C-alpha cells in the first residue's frame, strides 16, 4: 500500500504529466492553427482575385470554336501550295473567255514584284464581261484581279486590260 505522502506525490506527478501533455498539444496545435489561419487568409484573397479576373470559360470556348470554323471556311477557298500552277490557271481562264464570248487581243504571263500574273486584253459586250467577272468571283477558290483598266466603247461594248491570278496559301 502506498503511504499518504506517496499518493500525494503520485497525484502531483499525474497532474504535471497531464499538464505537460496538454501544453504540448496546445502549443503544437496553436502553431499549426496560426499557419493555417495565415494560409486561409492568403487563399481567400487569391480566390477572390481569381473570381474577379476569370472570364467566362464557356463563352471563350464558343468564341474559339467560331474562330476555328471561320478560319477553316476561309482556308478552303485558298489553293494549297502546288495545287494549281499558272498554266492550268491560264487554261481555265482561256476557256472562260471563250464561254462568255470575250475576244482577247493579248494573253500574256507577266511578273510584278515577284508575283506572276496573266495579263489579258479583251473586248466584248459589257454584259458578257460582267458575267465573266461574276463567274471569277463566285469560283470556289479565290481568284484575284489586282489590276483592271476598263474602257467604255459605247454601244454597250467595252475593252478591258486586267491582270488575273489565283490565291495560294503560304507554307
Amino acid at each position, binding site marked *: 500500500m502506498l503511504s499518504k505522502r506517496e499518493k500525494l506525490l503520485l497525484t502531483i506527478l499525474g497532474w504535471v504529466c*497531464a499538464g505537460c501533455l496538454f501544453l504540448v498539444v496546445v502549443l503544437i496545435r496553436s502553431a499549426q492553427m496560426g499557419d493555417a489561419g495565415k494560409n*486561409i487568409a492568403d487563399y481567400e484573397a487569391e480566390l477572390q482575385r481569381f473570381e474577379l479576373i476569370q*472570364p467566362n470559360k464557356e463563352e471563350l470556348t464558343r468564341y*474559339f470554336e467560331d474562330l476555328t470554323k471561320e478560319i477553316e471556311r476561309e482556308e478552303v477557298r485558298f489553293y494549297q501550295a502546288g495545287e494549281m500552277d499558272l498554266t492550268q490557271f491560264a487554261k481555265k481562264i482561256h476557256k472562260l473567255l471563250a464561254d462568255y464570248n470575250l475576244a482577247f487581243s493579248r494573253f500574256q504571263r507577266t511578273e510584278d514584284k515577284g508575283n506572276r500574273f496573266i495579263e489579258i486584253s479583251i473586248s466584248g459586250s459589257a454584259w458578257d464581261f460582267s458575267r465573266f467577272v461574276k463567274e471569277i*468571283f463566285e469560283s470556289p477558290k479565290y481568284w484575284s484581279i489586282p*489590276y483592271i483598266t*476598263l474602257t467604255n466603247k459605247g454601244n454597250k461594248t467595252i475593252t478591258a486590260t486586267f491582270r488575273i491570278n489565283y490565291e495560294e496559301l503560304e507554307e
Partner: protein
Amino acid sequence: MMGYAYTDLESHKHNLVLLDQSDVHLDYSVAQNNHVMGLMMSRLDFDSKIIEVPPIPDSAVRDMLSFKIRSLYPGDPAKTQFDYKLFVAKKKRFAVVFIGKNPVIEEYKSIAGKKPLLLPFTLLKGQLNKCKEQDACFLFWHSDWVELFILQQGVLATTTAIKRAKHIKSDFRKISKILAKEQEGMSLINYCADDEQQLISEHLEIHLPQNPGQIRLFKEFFSHGIRKSEALFAPERKTKLPPIKQRLTIYAFALLFCFGLLYNKCAVNLMEYEKYLEQKRNESVRLYADISSMQNEISKLEEKLLGLRDKKPINVYHLFNDLSSVFTGQTELLTLILKNSSLQMEGRSINALNLEERLKKHTSFSQVSLPEFKPERNSYKERFRMQGVYNAQ
C-alpha cells in the same frame, strides 16, 4: 388497449383484473404483457400516513421516516416494509408513507415482475398538485374499496381507504361520516370505472347534495404511463459515488481532456478548411492557366484570320455592283482603272459633285475625291475624273 391490472392479496382474491373493467379477468402472466402498464395493489393491504418532512437531505429522509414509523407502529420492523412519495405544498415537504406486510408486498412484486407497482396516490399525485381549490376531496372508487384524499387549505391532509359494502348507499354513509360537518361544501372529485359513473353520480346528488361533485374516469390515467421513479416498492438503485476529492480530480481531468479534444477538433477543422481552400485555389490556378492558354490560342487565331482576310482579293464584281448602285441612269462611266484597291474613274454625269457626295456616303468607298470636272460642249452633262479607294472585299 393500455391499462392497469389490479389484484387484492389480503382478501385472498388472487385474480388479476383490469382496473376499469373488473369483469375482465387476466392470467397472472398477463401482467407481464405489454398492454398492462403496471399493477395496482389493493389499498386495503396498506396503511398510509402523511408526514411532514423537515429540511433534511433526500438521502436522510428514509431513515427519518423509518424512525417515525417505528414510533407509530410498535411491531416487528422486520415483518413490514414501507415506501414513500414526497410532495411539496405551501413551501413545505410532505411524505405519503405506505406500510404493508412483507409477504404481501413480495407477492405483489412476484406478480408484477418488471412492471411498476402502484396505489391510487401514484396516479392521482399530479391531479392533487394541480388542484386549485383550497378544500377538496378526491375519491378513488375501486370495485372493492374507495380511497379518499382530503385536501385542506391546498395541502393533502389525510388519506383514508374504506372497504366497499354490498350496496353503494352504505359506501356513501361511510364517506359522509369521514367528511366532517365542517367540510360541508367541499368539492368531491370522483374517479371511477365507466360502468359505475352513472350510479355514483346519482348517489352523490342524493347522499351528499351539499358537496358539488365531479365524475372523472380511470381512462384519464391510461393516456400516459408511469415513470420508474413513481413506482412503489421498487428496488433501490445503489450508486455509490467516489469521495468528493476523487470526484473533483476526475472532473478536472475530464474537463481538461474535453478542452484538449475540443481544441484539437478546432485545429483539425481549421486545417481541413485550409486544405479545401488550397485545393480550390489550385483548381482556380489550373482553370486560369487553361483560360490563359486559350486566350493565347485565340489571339493567334484572330491574327491568322486577319491575315487570311488581308489576302482575300478585292471582289471586282462587287465593285461593279456598288458603282451601279451609286451611278444613276444619267451617269456614264467611260474608263475605270483599279490597281489593288485604288480606283480611278472617268465619266459623264449631269452633276459630278452630287456623284462625289453619294460615293463618299457609300461605306465601301473611302478617300473619294473629285480632282477635275468640266462641262461638256453641246451637252448638259459634266465630264469628271474621280479617285478613291475601294474597301469591300
